[in-house]
């Protein structure tokens, strides 16, 4: 019965789509909360290898994983593909592809060049458009193709070294994503996080990896806790809290040169660093004057300015994209809720009201949303509150969720959660429809921070 009902809603949505596109979007979203898979089908055809022997790399595999992980797309299995064309001119019949219900198909070729370099060429094709204009295109195949090629949405070619294969695959994913959504892709980004394995001599590790967990690098190993990594806006440096001297201190570290610098060592808490959007200031939590309050340090002069002054806990500052205000967590109203302070007037306003508590607020890159750790009935979940409507939605169903960090294009949230008794990282799309767990090794992984665009 429920399935039938859902089917009817889909039909209704399809009808609505023909009359009013904007309305159809929201109607479709209602269907999806019923449990439907909304991701748009597309085909990433395995790239043709034009050299001898085995293909040096499976680009399609990375692109498929990227696009699926975005929550927006559902790449079809290669078993369901009628053929494996390497370029648009090899697509014999667009209608066969169009009938698969796919929105687009990506085809590509890899050919060997001298000196361990490879030419990678790819095209993103709209098979429906190809079906319509296909006859024309074929008729003109002997002569002028150029004008009738509008079914090819994107087409690019590059020379790539083997050590750049993975990066280039992410680049292709970015191009496909942007071409089909109009929004910049965030597949060429990184995450910083804390890895903890208490069985090791130095249990606490500060790590950086690609956004998908590959190319992991250790930036720092310590016998004492490491916390709160945060990126500089240029993506070159990470600030974090280290207890290596028996107490919390804030450090900055260049992720390429390993050069590190101690920023603060005040009595009490030195915590929760957050780089300003212009990269010149660092918001932080200090308790040097009593209770934990929000401060901003001018990084060049090391001058510190107190922003909040309350006898209860203030913590977790996060900059709004315009750099003119901070959201932060405060207990001033009783339980922890998210507040916003205007940096000019120092005026503080409460922002969150849903549930028992809302902590760890992160403003989305467009400034139109606030992602928080929402506590309700003792459960901690990631939630999103829209600005200015105030609409609130719980996005996750995992347990003990914390430390949300938003992708620079605002599409996804990475956060820390508990699975099988261990802390692991998880992804959820901004609308909550797509959820995934990031695989972890032996230890525990926490405190993820998504890098800016690199």
């Amino acid at each position, binding site marked *: 019965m429920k399935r039938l009902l859902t089917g009817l809603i889909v039909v209704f949505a399809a009808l609505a789509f023909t009359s009013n596109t904007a309305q159809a979007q929201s109607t479709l979203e209602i269907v999806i909360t019923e449990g439907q898979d909304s991701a748009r089908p597309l085909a990433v055809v395995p790239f043709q290898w034009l050299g001898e022997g085995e293909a040096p790399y499976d680009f399609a595999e990375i692109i498929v994983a990227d696009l699926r992980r975005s929550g927006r797309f559902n790449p079809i299995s290669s078993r369901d593909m009628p053929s494996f064309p390497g370029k648009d001119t090899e697509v014999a019949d667009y209608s066969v592809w169009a009938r698969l219900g796919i929105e687009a198909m990506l085809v590509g070729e890899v050919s060997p060049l001298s000196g361990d370099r490879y030419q990678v060429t790819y095209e993103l094709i709209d098979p429906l458009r190809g079906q319509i204009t296909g006859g024309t295109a074929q008729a003109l195949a002997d002569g002028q193709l150029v004008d009738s090629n509008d079914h090819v949405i994107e087409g690019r070619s590059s020379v790539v070294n083997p050590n750049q294969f993975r990066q280039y695959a992410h680049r292709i994913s970015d191009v496909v994503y942007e071409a089909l959504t109009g929004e910049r892709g965030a597949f060429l980004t990184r995450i910083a996080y804390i890895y903890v394995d208490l069985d090791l001599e130095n249990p606490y590790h500060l790590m950086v990896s690609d956004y998908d967990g590959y190319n992991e690098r250790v930036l720092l190993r310590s016998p004492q*806790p490491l*916390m*709160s990594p945060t990126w500089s806006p240029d993506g070159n440096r990470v600030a974090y809290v280290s*207890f290596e001297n*028996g*107490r*919390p201190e804030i450090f900055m570290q260049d992720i390429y040169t390993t050069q590190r610098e101690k920023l603060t060592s005040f009595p*009490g*808490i030195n*915590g*929760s660093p957050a780089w300003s959007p212009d990269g010149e200031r660092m918001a932080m*939590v200090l*308790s040097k004057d009593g209770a*934990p309050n929000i401060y901003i340090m001018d990084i060049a002069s090391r001058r510190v300015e107190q922003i909040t002054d309350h006898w209860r*806990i203030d*913590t*977790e500052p996060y900059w709004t994209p315009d750099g003119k205000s901070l959201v932060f*967590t405060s207990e001033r109203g009783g339980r*922890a809720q998210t507040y916003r302070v205007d940096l000019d007037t120092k005026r503080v306003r409460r922002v969150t009201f849903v549930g028992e508590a809302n*902590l*760890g607020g992160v403003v989305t890159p467009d400034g139109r949303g606030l992602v928080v*750790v929402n*506590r309700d009935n003792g459960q*901690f979940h990631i939630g999103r509150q829209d600005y200015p409507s105030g609409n609130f939605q719980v996005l996750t169903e995992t*347990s*003990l969720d*914390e*430390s949300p960090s938003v992708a620079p294009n605002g599409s996804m949230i990475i956060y820390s959660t*508990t699975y099988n*008794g261990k*802390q692991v990282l998880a992804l959820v799309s901004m609308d909550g429809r797509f959820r995934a767990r990031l695989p972890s090794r032996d230890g525990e992984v*926490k*405190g993820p921070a998504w890098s800016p665009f690199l």
Partner: protein
Amino acid sequence: MQLKTVQLNKLVKALALTVSIATLAACSSSPDSDVDSSTTGTTGDGRTPSGVQTGAADRQLSPEEQRQERYAELRQDQVIYFDFDTSDIRSEFAELLAAHADYLVRNPSVTVVIEGHTDERGTPEYNIALGERRANATAAYMRNLGVLSSQITTVSFGEEKPLARGNNERAWSQNRRAVLVY
């Protein structure tokens, strides 16, 4: 310091050395080797390096000595626990903290680090603040018992150094704690 069980002159020097080591140990590690307690300076079975054995009769302990003995025993325990999301000192830990305060008051040169810890619930940053509140509450309690501010430093580790692993109340209740580290 009473060395009443010792008769051999040579041994006085040896024990004086032992005592000073014990004093050092008291400053740096744990309060077990209490220099003012009457228990120090005797060896368990009365055996001496020269092979002779001494014996002693049981002495009646004064109420003060009994208290000291009990405090020394209590001080073996250096951890107090908290309820969820609070920094209130539970009454069951009053005597434990009194025992540590008593020791610190009688040894003003001894310092203690009070670590504040939390369970894993709530955000790590919030828990750093909560851990500090627990450490501060414990420190304030000790100061009210006469311990000097200069003897106490506090540090919060939040949820970063759990004592017990596990995602249940049993583990959480063990992790919501303040630890006195000498």
